[in-house]
C-alpha cells in the first residue's frame, strides 16, 4: 500500500511520453512540485514533468546536480544498464522491441519454431500421461 519508489536524487526513471520515449534517465535535481531535472549519458540535461517519468527500482549514489562525467562514472559503477537489462521490466521491453523488428521471413520462422515446440511439449505430456495411467 505505501509507496516504494520515491522521486529522489539518483533515482533511475524511464521516459514514457514524448520525444525521448523509452530512454533511461537519472533524476539529478527537483525543480518544483511537478518537475525534475533529468540527465542521461547521451542526452542534454533537461527538465521534465514527473508525469512523463516512470520510476524504476534502480537508484544510484550521486550528489545533487553532478557533472556529466561524474554522472557517467557513477552510472557505470552501479551498472545501471546491466541491472536494467536483467530486470523483468527491462527484459520485457527488449522482447517487445525484438518482436516489432521481425521481418516477414522471421515471423514465419518463429511460427515454425512455435509449432515444433508445441509438438515436443505434447509428446512429453503424452509420455507422462501414459506413465501415470499405467
Amino acid at each position: 500500500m505505501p509507496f516504494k519508489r520515491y522521486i529522489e536524487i539518483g533515482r533511475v526513471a524511464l521516459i514514457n511520453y514524448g520525444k525521448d520515449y523509452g530512454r533511461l534517465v537519472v533524476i539529478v535535481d527537483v525543480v518544483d512540485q511537478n518537475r525534475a531535472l533529468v540527465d542521461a549519458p547521451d542526452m542534454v540535461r533537461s527538465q521534465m514533468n514527473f508525469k512523463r517519468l516512470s520510476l524504476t527500482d534502480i537508484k544510484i549514489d550521486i550528489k545533487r546536480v553532478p557533472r556529466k562525467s561524474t554522472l557517467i562514472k557513477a552510472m557505470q559503477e552501479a551498472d545501471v544498464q546491466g541491472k536494467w537489462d536483467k530486470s523483468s521490466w527491462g527484459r520485457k521491453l527488449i522482447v517487445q522491441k525484438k518482436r516489432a523488428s521481425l521481418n516477414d521471413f522471421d515471423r514465419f520462422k518463429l511460427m515454425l519454431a512455435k509449432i515444433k515446440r508445441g509438438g515436443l511439449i505434447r509428446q512429453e505430456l503424452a509420455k507422462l500421461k501414459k506413465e501415470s495411467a499405467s
Partner: protein
Amino acid sequence: MAPKQSRNPELIRGVGKFSRSKMYHKRGLWAIKAKNGGVFPRHDPVAKPSPAAAKPSKFYPADDVKKPLLNKRNPRPTKLRASIAPGTVLIILAGRFKGKRVVFLKQLSSGLLLITGPFKVNGVPLRRVNQSYVIATSTKVDVSGVNFEKFDDKYFAKKVEKKKSKGEGEFFEAEKEEKNVLPQEKKDDQKSVDAALIKSIEAVPDLKTYLAARFSLKAGMKPHELVF
C-alpha cells in the same frame, strides 16, 4: 559552346563590379573600333531567301478549327521502389495468386515487374505483375545464376488468332478445341529459370517452405506497424 561568361562579376543582384567605361575597356570595344577605322563595324542584315510563292488556299473553313494542345509527354517505365531489387521476395496482393510469396527478377520496359514462383515451389509461373499490387519484403534470394535477359513484354503478349469464318453447325465444337495449351517452349523457359533459383533457395533453411506458404493477416497484426 559553353554559355558566355560575363566579365563583370555581380556584387549584388543588379549591381556589377565594373562601371560602363571600365567594361568598355574590358570588352575591347576600343580595339574593335580601331580595327574598323574609328567606328563600330556595321553588319547589314542578311537577305533572307524569299519564300516560294505559296498558292492561295482553295478552301477556308467557315468556323475556326481548334488546334489540339501540344503534348510533350515523354513516357517512361514506372519508377522502381528502392526496396525492390532483383532477388527480392515480394508478396502479391491481388489476383489469383494473392498472398503468394514470389521472387522478383527484373523490371520490364513497360514498367511491370517480372516474377516467378518458382513454379515448382508455389505454382506461380513466369509472370508480369504491377508494382502497386505488391509488398516488398526485406528477404533476398540470390539470382546471380539465373539468365532472364530474353524475357520482355513481347514474350507475354496474347497470341492473335485469325478469325475463321463462322460455321454455325460446328460453332461449339470448334470453340472447345481451341483451348489454350501452354507451348512446350514456355514450359522449358520456366524450368531453366527455376533450376538455378531453386538451388539458391534451398541453400537457405526454411526459405522453400516460406515461399510455398501464403501470407495472411492474423489477429493482432497491424499492417502499418509490421516490418516486412
